[in-house]
């Protein structure tokens, strides 16, 4: 039982991270039907921004006195930075291809992914960058179960971000504009919505969430690396497809499922097959529900 509970907590942490990244894929797909392969790189860039900012703050001595404040501030700045980065990427790589075939934009996304990850390598070096987090070992213990403060923080931040995102998309004017653009770009333009600005904003929000995931991964696991965006990017993409690509609730659910299946697959069967289990679930769900768990008709797109 303790073993099960511990694995459940592990799965929740990992699933939360996947969910945050998956949202970016799903939102961008929902609005312009593009699979943004460069999304994993925003996650890595967020992790790097975090290490740069926190190392600076640690050098000034603020990490000793106000660790949580520093981490919160660094996270907000990293999210902001990645939002701007994503808007720039969108302007350079996707906007000029808006009218051309989807395949062209997809290839452009792949190219952007390679460009960004090599850019990270050239500017930040090939070595892993350690996070200056010394206090990361603390946690609560219930018998055999250990929940670190960081695990709690990751789950809490993930929940907060997901709630904020839901409010933004479903309760505000901006959200309404996004949903309208997702449904019909021409029609929404006719009623006065600046679709280019809305698309830009969607990219920014998705990248911001990925950056939050990146900095939390950095703090939790202790280091970042320029290749770190690739594997979680693929997993989160699978999570978005599993939940029904284009559907926000689906992406959250998909992320949690992939995280849980991975952890329980590794925990109860074998570590080497954990990815296999995650993708078997994906195949099974797509076999019975080709549009994913929460997905509706393929043509009727949503944010």
């Amino acid at each position, binding site marked *: 039982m303790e073993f099960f509970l511990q694995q459940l907590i592990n799965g929740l942490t990992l699933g939360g991270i996947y969910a945050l990244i998956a949202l970016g894929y799903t939102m961008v797909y929902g609005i312009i039907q593009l699979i943004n392969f460069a999304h994993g790189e925003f996650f890595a860039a967020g992790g790097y921004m975090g290490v740069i900012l926190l190392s600076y703050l640690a050098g000034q001595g603020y990490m000793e006195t106000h660790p949580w404040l520093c981490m919160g501030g660094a996270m907000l700045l990293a999210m902001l930075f990645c939002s701007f980065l994503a808007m720039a990427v969108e302007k350079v790589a996707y906007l000029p291809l808006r009218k051309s075939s989807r395949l062209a934009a997809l290839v452009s996304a792949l190219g952007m992914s390679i460009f960004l990850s090599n850019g990270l390598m050239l500017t930040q070096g090939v*070595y892993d960058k*350690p996070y200056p987090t010394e206090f*990361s070992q603390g946690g609560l213990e219930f018998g*055999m179960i250990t929940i670190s403060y960081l695990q709690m923080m990751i789950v809490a931040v993930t929940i907060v971000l997901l709630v904020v995102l839901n409010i933004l998309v479903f309760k505000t004017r901006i959200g309404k504009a996004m949903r309208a653009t997702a449904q019909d770009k021409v029609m929404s333009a006719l009623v006065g919505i600046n679709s280019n600005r809305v698309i830009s904003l969607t990219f920014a929000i998705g990248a911001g969430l990925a950056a939050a995931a990146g900095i939390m*991964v950095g703090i939790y*696991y*202790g280091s970042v690396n320029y290749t770190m965006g690739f594997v979680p990017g693929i997993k989160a993409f699978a999570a978005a497809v599993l939940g029904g690509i284009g559907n926000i609730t689906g992406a959250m659910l998909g992320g949690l499922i992939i995280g849980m299946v991975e952890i329980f*697959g590794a*925990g109860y069967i074998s*570590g080497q097959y954990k990815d296999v289990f995650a993708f078997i679930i994906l195949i099974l769900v797509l076999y019975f529900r080709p549009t994913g768990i929460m997905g509706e008709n393929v043509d009727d797109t949503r944010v």
Partner: protein
Amino acid sequence: MRKKLFVLLVTGLILVPFLMGTATAETLKIGTLSPLTGPYAADGNDIVNGVKAAVTVVEAEGGIPGFDKIEVHPQDTACDPRQAVAAANKLINEEVVGVIGAYCSSSTIPASEALAEENIPMITPASTNEKVTERGLPYMFRMCGRDDDQSKIAGAFIKDYLKAKTIYLVDDKTTYSQGLAENVANVVQGLGIKVVAHDHVNQGDKDYSAVLTKIKDANPDVFYMSLQNSATGSLMAIQAKRFGLKCKIVSQDAVYHPQFISIAKEAAEGVYMTFGFTDKSKPAYKKYLAAYSGTHGEPGAYSGYSYDGAMVLLTAIKNAKSTDPAKIKAEIMKMDMDGASKHIKFMENGDSGSDYIIYTVAGGQFKNFWNPATGQLF
């Protein structure tokens, strides 16, 4: 008249390659093969830097007679067998006289076969899998030790010093890490230690919570961590510490890297690992350290072996006064000298002997810990 002109032109054309040949022969080209991109790029760059440091030293000491300068041609294997072969072929086209590399055993083995067809000497600084020198290739040399020796030392340490009864092994499924973990499993079973489980993780993973929870549940005496990369090792060590694992962690040569400590910090303390012994008081080591740290910073795990590999190659060319592979090999086999990382003396199969000892991390530094030759602490 026209015929004369034609003959002159043809002779001129025939002479061009010879003239060009003498003009370019003054540059000595040596190649390196190592992962410069991808997850193992850190170790790959250490290898290139080690070779460059050796070239600096040789050039400062007067270079090699007959050559104006020595050029290093680094090629990226990305630790991928196919790319390694392509990189080896590129080096063959660039007409290098010898190659230092590769890093991953799974790259070294196919790349060496491509180089062997052209009889280009290859010295690997880091590939420890036994097969590297067991294939009868005449121009394959190895600066580092071998995994079968490494696993025996690890087994002896686990049995004699740690007095373990149970062991849990984890590897990340590369030719090197899995082969080594299997060797260790066989060795400790022969010593009467029970293997609780042999689990695997994937390369590129960051989260090991599932497997570490299993280890905590199984509560073995020793957790043997066999990973291809030091950064992965530090992630696992941090998470192991966070989960409150009580068992001793024993790891291997790929985790021995300054990066392991800089990332894992206090979680690295008390982790044991096997790595070749280096006598840091010897002048050869001091010369290397001065040449290396001046331009490339703190040496990585395999910088020393790469430096020695390049030294062996360049010294052999210098002594042979030729770039003929057979003559280079004859000179390499004659060598009996102190290198930066070890005493250099090659055996018939191209190995230079293993000298593994147990290191540990104490006070944020690697310390010599246990000497298998005497069974005593340092």
